[in-house]
């Protein structure tokens, strides 16, 4: 298994993703977007950062870069694809996943540990957890408020495509525990295939025992193991 971590100008979590995956025994390498997707990539991470300086909207420019066509083809072939933070914004802008991540309700950049409740443990990204389990993973974003129209939100709920919701330490999904005003406290969702996922929190920043306060993010990355 070689996971391609796609690096755009302005990506800044690509090395962290490679290091966290390597720690889990997953072979991962950074791939510069202009070099195209390696034919043998059997996993793809779109990492966090500020691709293209967040011009127009976070993720809008990278979503239309040529490599994203190859990412979409790979996703359609069942290759696991994970978008984290800016990668989640890119995923939604590229329509790999529905909805949009836009300006936090606070209008501020927020960098903090949050609690997430596992909504659906029957996916590659959450198989390491129990449904209802509370995990601790950091966020770092200014545009992480999940927005989607009511009809498509209901479809996500009905189809069990919500992976995580922001919650308090006891697992209660409340407005106070919602760091950015996301609809339904949604922190991460699945695409049309369960092998495609995006989330605003950073699992790669909660994976290394010597560096990170929590290693709860490991379970998400184990989808690639």
């Amino acid at each position, binding site marked *: 298994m070689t996971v391609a971590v796609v690096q755009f100008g302005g990506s800044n979590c690509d090395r962290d993703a490679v290091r966290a995956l390597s720690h889990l025994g997953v072979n991962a390498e950074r791939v510069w977007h202009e070099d195209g997707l390696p034919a043998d990539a059997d996993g793809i991470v779109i990492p966090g950062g500020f691709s293209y300086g967040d011009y*127009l909207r976070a993720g809008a420019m990278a979503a239309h870069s040529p490599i994203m066509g190859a990412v979409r083809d790979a996703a359609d072939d069942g290759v696991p694809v994970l978008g984290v933070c800016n990668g989640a914004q890119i995923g939604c802008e590229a329509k790999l996943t529905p909805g*949009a991540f*836009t*300006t936090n309700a606070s209008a501020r950049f927020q960098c903090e540990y949050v609690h997430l409740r596992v909504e659906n443990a029957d996916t590659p990204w959450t198989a390491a957890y129990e449904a209802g389990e509370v995990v601790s993973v950091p966020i770092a974003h200014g545009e992480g*408020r999940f*927005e989607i129209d009511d009809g498509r939100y209901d479809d996500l709920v009905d189809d069990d495509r919500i992976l995580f919701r922001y919650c308090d330490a006891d697992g209660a999904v409340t407005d106070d525990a919602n760091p950015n005003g996301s609809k339904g406290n949604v922190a991460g969702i699945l695409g049309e295939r369960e092998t495609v996922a995006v989330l605003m929190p950073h699992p790669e920043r909660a994976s290394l025992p010597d560096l990170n306060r929590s290693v709860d993010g490991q379970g998400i990355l184990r989808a690639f193991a």
Partner: protein
Amino acid sequence: MTTYTATVTVRLKRGVLDPEAETTKRALERLGFDLEALRSADRFEVDLEADSASAATDRADEMAERLLANPTIHDYDVEVSEPE
């Protein structure tokens, strides 16, 4: 072919929270201004060559659909003007 200017205005759909506009409104109120509401929008001015105004409008519409706006959260409108 004529050179047209297509003005694409992109704004959040009604009902979608605009925290930056809210912050701007509060800042205006701190300066002593009296206002009921404030909405912000992005305006793009695109110069393009086209056979007709309607062809220019169609192309600018597609630009908005595919990149300038995000249909999940935005409405947009397009106005095309000919050079004076």
